[in-house]
């Protein structure tokens, strides 16, 4: 049995360091999906704007992030503890489940001047060299149609050396100012998800 989400969250919040990785012997996919959905949304729309959409995200990207949380390469108050309990195969099973789901639509949130600022940021950071048409592929995440508040937080986390599991992004994001980061995040809500 898994702990109720609220209890789990409180328990994890007081942990000073991630727990040692322990294989979950009673792994039941439906239970774990329910746990994930309590934040990432029953219908694929996360309950908070700062949480990422994971429905339809790339399989290998989800798997890699779970492994990075478990190994301490990426940190989050909740995700670190949750991911630490999964074996590689369990993480793959969850990644495959969510990768198969349809990407949910969220409304575009563009403002005047966003396109110009975003294009400037994309050119400067050479973002398309890895992110292509923003649809994701394998270890590269889909960012088209992603929650803008999550993208803003992510870009700031790279810029401020909070998130360290894609080390070259720390340098790249330092070149972007806050208005450009905000514009980029809104711009990606306008890209059609394919």
């Amino acid at each position: 049995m898994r702990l109720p989400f609220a209890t789990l969250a409180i328990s994890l919040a007081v942990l000073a360091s991630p727990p040692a990785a322990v294989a979950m012997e009673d792994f039941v996919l439906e239970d774990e999906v329910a746990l994930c959905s309590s934040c990432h949304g029953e219908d694929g729309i996360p309950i908070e704007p700062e949480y990422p959409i994971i429905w339809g995200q790339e399989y290998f990207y989800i798997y890699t992030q779970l492994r990075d949380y478990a190994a301490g390469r990426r940190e989050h108050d909740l995700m670190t503890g949750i991911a630490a309990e999964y074996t590689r195969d369990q993480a793959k099973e969850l990644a495959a489940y969510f990768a198969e789901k349809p990407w949910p639509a969220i409304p575009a949130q563009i403002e005047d001047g966003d396109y110009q600022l975003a294009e400037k940021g994309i050119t400067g950071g050479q973002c398309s060299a890895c992110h292509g048409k923003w649809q994701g592929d394998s270890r590269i995440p889909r960012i088209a149609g992603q929650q803008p508040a999550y993208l803003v937080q992510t870009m700031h986390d790279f810029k401020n050396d909070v998130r360290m599991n894609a080390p070259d992004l720390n340098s790249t994001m330092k070149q972007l100012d806050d208005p450009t980061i905000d514009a980029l995040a809104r711009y990606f809500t306008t890209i059609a998800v394919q």
Partner: protein
Amino acid sequence: MIRGMTTAAFCVAASCLTGAASAQEETSSSTLYGDLQSVTQNMLTRAAGDGNNFLHTNGNYAQTRYYPASQINTGNVKNLRPAWIFQTEIVDTMETSPIVVNGIMYVTTAFNHVYALDARTGKQIWHHKHAMGPVTTYCCGPNNRGVAVSGDKLFMGTLDAKLVALDAKTGKQLWETQIAEAELGYSETMAPSVVDNMVLIGTNGGEYGIRGFVKAFDTETGELIWTFHTIPEDSVGVWATHDATGRDMHRDIDAEKAALAKMGDPYETLGGGVWQNPAVDLETRRIYFVVGNPSPDLDGSLRPGDNLYTDSLVAVDLDTGEYICHLQYIAHDVWDLDAVSPPIITTVADAEGNDVKGILHAGKTGHVYVHDAEDCSLIRFSEAMVPQEDMWTLPTAEGARMLPGANGGVEWSPMAIDPNLRLSYAINLHQPMTYTVRSTPYPEGKLWLGGSFDVIPDEEQWGNVTAVDYDTGGIAWQVRTAEPMIGGILATAGGLVFTGEGNGLFKAYDSSNGGELWRFQAGAGVNAPPSSYTVEGQQYIVVAAGGNAQLNFKRGNNIIAFTLAD
């Protein structure tokens, strides 16, 4: 049967799949050498003189991209018009070199789709989609540069680091071989080369801490024949302090030696991808290729030594893969100004003015390097084709400006030559960048640049088409373009060079003086190398217009064939 092989070839051309054979859809005999059914070694060997087919990614084994047909020429190119446009399923970055065999064209797209087309009409014959594995790791876009052809097979490298063989008549897969592990950063975007029943292919991955190689596989079985590691177990070299042009690279040799004593030779994760095809010299049974950057790109602190054979021209034995010679352009590169454009074999003047067999390579530094094929030594280097400023300023934590930017110079784009004019033709990029270093440990298959190279947004970018006299190193002519250039170029016996731009323009220039003679707006970035062919007496120029992921040029999905208006 009287009709025998000829009928089979006609079926391939257009009609058997639909069962609607007609005389109009038949492809006539157009080959100079061999039969219609398959591509013989003789055809491949003599491709430089074949004005009907286009059998190699870069035209012929010497990789001259000089097409011997002259029906389309300086006098009539103004009448060039689209003959047909084929739209692929994939609207994304296109770098394919169309291959044409007896009126059948083979093109590839991003994510490893392959199409066979009737080269006269653009009609699809078959379409093959590679069953991509769940793990791919690649830079810089989901590109593919085309197929190699031999016998009745096609060969393609894939993003999930496989080599696949397809039946040229049906597109069905015959075999596949896992070349290397995709999760560790290996991938394939280059077109393979085929010679004497061997498929030759390198690897991407210099941005991910791979150990590079060129491998030879059996065309019939896919079994590995030999491997040449582009990174030897002793990668230290001679502690070169200056680059091949004689400029000080500001290395701290003492610090590097101390690091080497502490951490040992870094060869296992040192990079050294091979992005483009080797030039093949059947006379000496050698191949010549260039090796890309060391990993991590910008952080030299983790990889003391010259980082052999990164940033080098290398020659190995065609039959065994054994090392013959090399020349390193930049030892211990910390700018990613590496060697990617495929080398060319041609006759060049040596330092005394005597004709010798030479090798040309266009570097990301912006120079055309001219080598003696015998020992790889450098005969000369050309004037810089793009601005160079503050070379070699070391990357800093804050970011240091230096030109050229990290895309070059000349990127992976192949050059062409006109052996009669003794000119090489290159397309250039001018993209001012800052180089930032940030040391991080090997990330096990993730992007590992060791910092970043960032375009300076307020500085102007542009491109060039540049002709260099490779006997002197002087620039013969140069034409400015609005966008940085990436894709490739083709020269023809009609006195023309063809090349495209990121803004969709596809142009023909007079190869003797750079005068623009024709242009066409393709509607998406023309960032792929053009090819040419002749069917039923009609010469065509063909190019892909699919844009480019690396430079974010407008994507598309068009293969456009041009011929002279009636």
